[in-house]
């Protein structure tokens, strides 16, 4: 029999929303960029790319929200916390900058400090090093569904007994390279983090359940995703991909309110699924009840993924 898996901590950092509840209510438009140094201090940020800096700030907030860090570091064994990070654009800035330098000045012009940042898993591994998290460490770069996929792999590793809890991060930086790739659209330049944990482990350490995780599906058609999620309960709220809401068939899930990031929030890409989970947590904190369906991808993507989140009482 599989264990109940829950969300025990959440953090959000996007322009105009710095908490799960603020995200659920909708980020304010025209807000200032997220400043990681204001949250974790300047120490250790030099040489780290924007995505990793955002990851540090999100990790600090989410681990604190879950009650997993105290004065002396983590409050549970280091090997009991894993990390799964999701990002598609994460290190494109380092890759293209190093490439430009090689072409224009030869390899002698490059900085050795860029080497770790050239590896796409730098966000996940850097967060593990900064916070001393020695469980499995995974970087998911899986396109638009990446964030929900990351939550799925956290659940899978916990169910397999590899680890008791996983910090799941979804983050996307905004920069010139990303905008060129997206046809001029800025990215969300922030993200979200949640702590995914075995319900029993939360209870043992007197933590707080923020949401209960239900089924996950990744398949070609949106309709099939929704059909297969139905085993986890009928939805009261549907988190849809930002901007794509209009593209989804109006006949799908009739009567269920569709919510998503406003177009002005920028392209969420690999951060989307984790932002959706955090928004569901925020909605539950504000008294929302019933199942939340999160959907990423869509008919224009290589596939769609869906995840069900239930209110804390469902544990």
């Amino acid at each position, binding site marked *: 029999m599989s264990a109940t898996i829950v969300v025990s901590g959440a953090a959000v950092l996007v322009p105009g929303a710095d908490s799960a509840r603020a995200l659920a209510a909708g980020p304010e438009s025209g807000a200032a960029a997220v400043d990681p140094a204001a949250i974790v201090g300047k120490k250790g940020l030099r040489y780290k790319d924007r995505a990793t800096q955002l990851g540090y700030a999100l990790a600090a907030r989410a681990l604190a929200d879950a009650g997993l860090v105290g004065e002396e570091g983590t409050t549970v064994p*280091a090997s009991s916390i894993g990390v799964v990070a999701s990002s598609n654009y994460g290190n494109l800035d380092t890759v293209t900058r190093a490439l430009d330098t090689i072409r224009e000045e030869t390899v002698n012009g490059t900085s050795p400090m860029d080497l770790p940042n050239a590896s796409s898993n730098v966000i996940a591994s850097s967060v593990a090093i900064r916070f001393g998290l020695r469980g499995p460490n995974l970087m998911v*770069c899986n396109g638009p569904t990446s964030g929900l996929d990351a939550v799925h792999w956290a659940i899978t*590793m916990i169910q397999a007994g590899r680890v008791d809890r996983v910090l799941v991060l979804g983050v996307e930086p905004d920069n010139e390279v990303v905008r060129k790739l997206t046809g001029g659209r800025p990215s969300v330049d922030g993200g979200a983090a949640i702590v995914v944990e075995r319900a029993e482990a939360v209870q043992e350490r007197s933590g707080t359940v923020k949401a209960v995780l239900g089924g996950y599906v990744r398949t070609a058609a949106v309709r099939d995703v929704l059909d297969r999620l139905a085993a986890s309960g009928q939805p009261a709220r549907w988190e849809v991909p930002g901007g794509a809401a209009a593209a989804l068939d109006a006949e799908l899930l009739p009567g269920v309110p569709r919510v998503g990031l406003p177009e002005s929030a920028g392209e969420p890409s690999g951060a989307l699924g984790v932002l959706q989970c955090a928004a569901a947590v925020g909605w539950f904190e504000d008294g929302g009840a019933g199942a939340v369906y999160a959907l990423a991808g869509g008919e224009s993507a290589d596939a769609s993924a869906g995840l069900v989140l239930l209110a804390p009482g469902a544990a």
Partner: protein
Amino acid sequence: MISRPIVGMGAVASIGTDVDEVFDSLCAGRTGHHELRGFDSTRFRAKYAYEVDDRPAPGQDVPARATRLLTEAIAQAVADAGIGEDLSGIPVLIGTGLRELRSAELWWREGTPFTDAGLHFGTALRERFGADVTHTFSNACSASLYALALGSDLLEQGETDTVIVAGVDVLTESMFGLLERVHPVAPDRVRPFDRNRTGVLMGDGAGAVVLRREDGGRKAHGRLRGVAVNCDAYHVTAPHPEGIAEAMRTAYGLAGIKPADVDLVMTHGTGTLLNDEAEATALAEVFGADAGRPLLTAVKSMTGHTSGASGLLNLIVGLRAMNEGRVPPTVGLEDPVDEAAKFRWVTGEAATDQSMRVAQLNAFGFGGINAVAIVEADK
């Protein structure tokens, strides 16, 4: 204890276009070492790599090479497993260090067409195989063994009866350049565990396997007995013997074996100063008095560092080695570092007529992400 049959295998590297050719090349000591084939070599101090020779013309690079190698390896593996090319509904887990970042580089500098849908492999695998349960993990040099661990978990949890695990990487200019930048003298070839090694050079490669819950009466290449994954949480590029040793012990525990049961170790063996010492130190600590028992080899001496693909290439070569009783040599290993001196290295010629049942596969990545797998011959 898990024991899942591996019923299909596929591989492509600088030294061969399928599993047979790759294995035969390795046993013959043939390396893919060659002057840079796709980059302007005047930009680099290092002049050599281990690339697949598939460019339209020397020095002229083309996008989507990683995708091409990956789809080729998967096509071979599914044909070998006899499951056909419709992969809809079958999880396909891809471990990679660099995704399609080479295509992104060509887009950035040369203006070749590219969109963000091409950064991960799901888009191409949907087109080619109808695959829709695809997952691209960018987990540095342990990526494909991390993917193997997750694929194994899916089988154990009853999510699927079949899972395809693959690994792929090709050279990117940024990684090739930054890797040589950190060496005081540019590396000239990969000589794992040798006292006079000069560092690591990259290689192109892809590997794929089909894992099943049951063999269904089909002859398997071998069985997956366990995969351990962890993180040192120590340093972004330097490995840590303690975390590596811990991953090995966890893998033995998952497989229900003792170090003395291991007949063959397919090392990570990158030829860097730091990896080889850390890996040898961890192996010496874990094997203790049994250090002289298993055979050891490092095929990166012939394939170069195939990054995310390397763990799975080690698995494929390790299974083949056990089934044929032949172990490829570590080319260029003449004078082992002190930490590695007590082991039984295969050097010079391939070892033949060996009786082996259990192989250990190592893969360690930037950020201290370690993966160790145990496979068993299906005899």
